[in-house]
């Protein structure tokens, strides 16, 4: 079972009958909420974090492999320009290690598997068009104002079409689109047909920082890109350490149902009690924020936006072996599956073992069921899905993949406090109609989360950035 280790320092479970007063009530103990609470506490504010689950971390979740080893069942990779999350990790004493990338990767298309090096699969018919399309994406992304994409010169035109429509225009055949969809399967939990071009260009523009313009190359790359590093102890360790540092200010098992606010305070109601605060931070997925009972009601534009920022569909499927046997065959364990496969991509997800990244412990292969793959397989019997995933792994690393020591899945759509993964994607028309409402405080209530970040939107780095920005906004309002 996925462990979902609970926060050692989090408050347990007695209902609170008398309304408590705090400076700030934070709803959601994911990375954004915890980061905001940490910054506010450091600034001397009295904070409570209310978390619906019995664990902290949100989309960060460690799976216990035994013998003190874990593997990530949720968000896991970090890389260059993600300085917010890397800085937080350093501050919390959580070290990184390189995701395993030595050896050849494998490209699977129409049932045939071919080894390749680097990040771009060897598809001579698709590659020229894809290369040009990626260059054009980067070029257009540079023209998108990072903090207000709806003001881009061609915002209305770009938001009136899907990313897929644009890709079809700029590439010949279906190869370029299908290879972009491989990446989006795990990045969006969907396809280019589900997202607007403007949203996608903004997403790419955010794959950088204030000094380094975002590029799609950085987003898809292993070494030198967003899949370069992982965290010792699993990414959920960041949340666990933050919760420890909050020292009893995290209340688990406390789903918030409603928020009322007046001129001087905001009241947060849960089944486990009521908190009155000067400010609140809603650090939940946007759709869940729209489902709270608001008094007064959320501005209709903000409500409409949050309802439209629903998450993609994503499950992680992981097979555990006695050792990472594929490494001896010169394979990195990475697979890229063009349309029609059970998973869209797979990685060597082994724990770092002796710390070098060379193993010494179990080998783990992880595949993404994202978007179309999730829709094809999520409703199938678990046994059949497992078989299909392992056969996809076997196409990349050989038949030994068919017999894992253990196997587990984490379907993020089945998580009632997440409702999908890995992030929210905006369909055509959403950003230009409602974009300015994304981060706008509603009275005394602020919004935080990976979906509320301009840089690395939907990533851990975006969550940390958003949490810190939100804390700063509250401190600025109260100083």
């Amino acid at each position, binding site marked *: *079972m*996925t462990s979902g280790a609970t926060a050692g320092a989090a408050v347990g479970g007695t209902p609170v009958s008398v309304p408590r007063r705090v400076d700030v009530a934070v709803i959601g103990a994911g990375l954004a909420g915890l980061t905001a609470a940490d910054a506010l506490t450091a600034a001397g504010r009295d904070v409570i974090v209310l978390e619906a689950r019995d664990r902290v971390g949100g989309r960060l979740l460690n799976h216990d492999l035994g013998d003190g080893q874990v593997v990530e069942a949720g968000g896991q990779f970090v890389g260059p320009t993600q300085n917010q999350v890397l800085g937080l990790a350093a501050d919390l004493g959580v070290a990184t290690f390189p995701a395993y990338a030595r050896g050849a990767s494998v490209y699977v298309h129409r049932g045939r598997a071919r080894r390749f090096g680097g990040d771009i699969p060897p598809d001579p018919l698709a590659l020229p068009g894809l290369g040009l399309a990626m260059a054009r994406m980067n070029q257009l992304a540079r023209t998108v104002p990072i903090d207000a994409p709806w003001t881009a010169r061609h915002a209305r035109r770009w938001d009136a079409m899907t990313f897929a429509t644009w890709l079809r225009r700029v590439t010949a055949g279906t190869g370029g689109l299908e290879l972009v969809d491989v990446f989006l399967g795990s990045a969006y939990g969907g396809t280019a047909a589900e997202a607007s071009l403007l949203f996608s260009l903004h997403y790419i523009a955010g794959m950088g920082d204030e000094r380094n313009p975002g590029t799609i190359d950085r987003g898809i790359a292993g070494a030198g890109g967003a899949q370069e590093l992982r965290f010792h102890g699993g990414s959920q360790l960041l949340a666990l350490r933050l919760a420890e540092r909050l020292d009893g200010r995290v209340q688990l098992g406390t789903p918030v149902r409603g928020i009322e606010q007046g001129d001087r305070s905001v009241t947060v109601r849960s089944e486990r009690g009521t908190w009155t605060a000067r400010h609140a931070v809603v650090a939940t997925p946007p759709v869940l924020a729209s489902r709270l009972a608001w008094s007064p009601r959320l501005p209709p534009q903000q409500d409409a936006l949050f309802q439209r920022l629903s998450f993609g569909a994503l499950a992680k499927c992981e097979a555990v072996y006695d050792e990472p046997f594929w490494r001896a065959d010169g394979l990195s364990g990475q697979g890229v599956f063009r349309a029609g496969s059970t998973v869209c991509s797979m990685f060597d997800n082994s724990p770092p073992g002796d710390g070098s990244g060379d193993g010494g412990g179990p080998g783990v292969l992880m595949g993404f069921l994202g978007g179309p793959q999730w829709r094809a397989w999520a409703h199938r019997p*678990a*046994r*059949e*899905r*497992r*078989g*299909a995933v*392992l*056969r996809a792994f*076997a196409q990349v690393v050989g*038949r030994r993949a*068919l*017999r894992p020591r*253990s*196997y*587990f*899945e984490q379907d993020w759509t089945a998580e009632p406090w997440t409702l999908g993964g890995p992030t929210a994607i905006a369909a055509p028309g959403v950003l230009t109609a409602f974009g300015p409402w994304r981060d706008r405080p509603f009275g005394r209530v602020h919004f935080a989360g990976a979906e509320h970040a301009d840089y690395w939107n939907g990533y851990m780095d975006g969550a940390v950035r958003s949490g810190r920005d939100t804390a700063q906004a509250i401190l600025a309002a109260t100083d």
Partner: protein
Amino acid sequence: MSEVSEVSETAVLAVPAERVWEVLSATGRYAEWVAGVLEVTDHHGEATVGRTYSERNRTVGPLTTRSTWTVRELDPPRRRVDTGTGFAPMHDMTNVFDVEPVPVGDGLGTRLTYTVRYRPGLGPIGRLIDRLQQPGLRRSFQTSMRALEDLIIAEGDEHEGHNG
């Protein structure tokens, strides 16, 4: 009327016969292991005599055909006979699976025989096409049976963990 052609291949699979029978009885799953089946477009679940299922099949290169099969005989867990349409110029297509438990190493295995019979149309041209296609058919039967073995191995035991 032309003579009946028969193509038959046998493989010993390192998986139990009851699982082989179970999977090959699932009319919705042929695209997962039968080479050349691109998708099952309609099916009735567990094979039942007199009921049908439909497929889209690869033929030559990028060409595809749509076929419909009717389950004709069931002798669980040993023998299954279906007849199919949609493979012109091949007519009177019959597909037979024979399943026999055999020991494999220290465990249970299965001898699976995969047979098709059909009547080539188009006279001498049809017979020529038939001769040319038979080696490919034999390879695809072997590929299918190995894929079935892999599928059953990968799905593990009934009580093996699928989610934890």
